[in-house]
C-alpha cells in the first residue's frame, strides 16, 4: 500500500513538473505575448500543486491568489496598456551573438545548479509525523507574527516604499515640466513654455 502511494505521488510529481516546464517554456517562447501572459498564469496555478504535495496548503492558496489572480492579471493589463508590446518583431533578437551569450550563461547556471541538486547528499524523505496539518496554519501564523513579526513589518515598509516610488516615478515627468513653485501661498506653479506650446498644439 505504501509503495502504491509513493508511486502515485511520484507520477503526480512528474505530470505536474512536465506541465509546469512546458507552460514556462511557452510563456517565454510563444510568439503572441497575450498567450504568453496566459500561459504564465496557468504555470503559476500549476506550481500551487507542488505546495500541496509539500504539505503547505496555505502557500498553495496564496500562490493562486497572488500569482494567478494578481501578478498574471497585472501582466495582461500591462500588455493591453502598452500599444507596441504585441509587436512580433520584438521576438527576434537582432544579433545571434547576444543570444548565444545568453544561452551560454543560462547553461552554466543550469549545469552548476544541476550538479548541486544531484550530487549533494540531500535527504530522501521527511518525517511526516512531525508535521501536523491541522496545526499547520496556526504554527505558521505564530512563526510569522510571533517570533518574526519584525521581518513582516520590514517587508511592509519595503513594499510601501516600492509603491510610493512607483507613484513618484509616474508623476516625475509632469513635475519636470513645471517651473519652481512661486506665489504668495507657494502653490501657484508657472508652466514651462515648451509645455504650454504643446498644450496649445493639442487644442
Amino acid at each position, binding site marked *: 500500500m505504501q509503495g502504491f502511494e509513493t508511486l502515485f505521488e*511520484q507520477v503526480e510529481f512528474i505530470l505536474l*513538473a512536465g506541465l509546469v*516546464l512546458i507552460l*514556462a517554456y511557452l*510563456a*517565454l517562447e510563444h510568439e503572441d*505575448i497575450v498567450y*504568453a501572459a496566459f500561459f504564465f498564469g496557468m*504555470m*503559476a496555478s500549476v506550481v500551487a500543486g*507542488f*505546495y500541496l*504535495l*509539500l504539505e*503547505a496548503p496555505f*502557500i498553495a492558496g*496564496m500562490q493562486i491568489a*497572488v*500569482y494567478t489572480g*494578481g*501578478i498574471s492579471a497585472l*501582466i495582461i493589463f*500591462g*500588455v493591453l*496598456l*502598452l500599444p*507596441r508590446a504585441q*509587436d512580433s518583431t*520584438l521576438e527576434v*533578437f537582432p544579433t545571434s551573438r547576444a543570444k548565444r*551569450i*545568453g544561452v551560454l*550563461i*543560462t*547553461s552554466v*547556471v*543550469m549545469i552548476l*545548479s*544541476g550538479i*548541486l*541538486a544531484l550530487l549533494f547528499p*540531500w*535527504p*530522501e*524523505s*521527511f518525517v511526516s509525523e512531525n*508535521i501536523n496539518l491541522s496545526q499547520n496554519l496556526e*504554527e*505558521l501564523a505564530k*512563526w*510569522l507574527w510571533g517570533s518574526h513579526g519584525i521581518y513582516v513589518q520590514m*517587508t511592509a515598509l*519595503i*513594499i510601501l516604499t*516600492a*509603491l510610493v*516610488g*512607483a507613484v513618484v*516615478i509616474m508623476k516625475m*515627468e509632469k513635475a519636470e515640466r513645471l517651473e519652481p513653485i512661486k506665489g504668495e501661498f507657494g502653490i501657484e506653479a508657472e508652466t514651462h513654455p515648451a509645455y504650454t506650446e504643446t498644450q496649445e498644439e493639442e487644442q
Partner: protein
Amino acid sequence: MIPLSWYLVLAFILIGLGVYGMMVKRNLIRVLIGAEIIGNGVTIALVALALYNSPFTFTGQGLTIIIIAIAAAHTALAMVLMLMYHRRYGTVDLGQPVRQEEITGV
C-alpha cells in the same frame, strides 16, 4: 516519498528558464515573466528544503509568504517602469536606447 533532489532539479530548471528569458528576450514583458519564473523556482526550492529539513521549521514557508508579497510589489513597480520606458522610447524593445544613441548620438 518523493526525493528532495527531484524538487531541487525542477526548481533549478525553472530558475534556468527564467535566467534564459531575462538574458535572451528583447521584450520587457518577457523579461518580467522570466523574473517571475525565477521567483517560482526559488519558492519551490525553499518550501521543499524546509519540509525535508529535520527538525521541521516554518522558516521556508514564512519566507515564501514574504517572497510572494514582495513579488506582487515588484511586479507593480516593474509595470510602472515599463510604462515610463514606453512613454520615452515608444516601444518596449530593450535595444531601442542603443539604436537611438547610434542614430542621434544622444
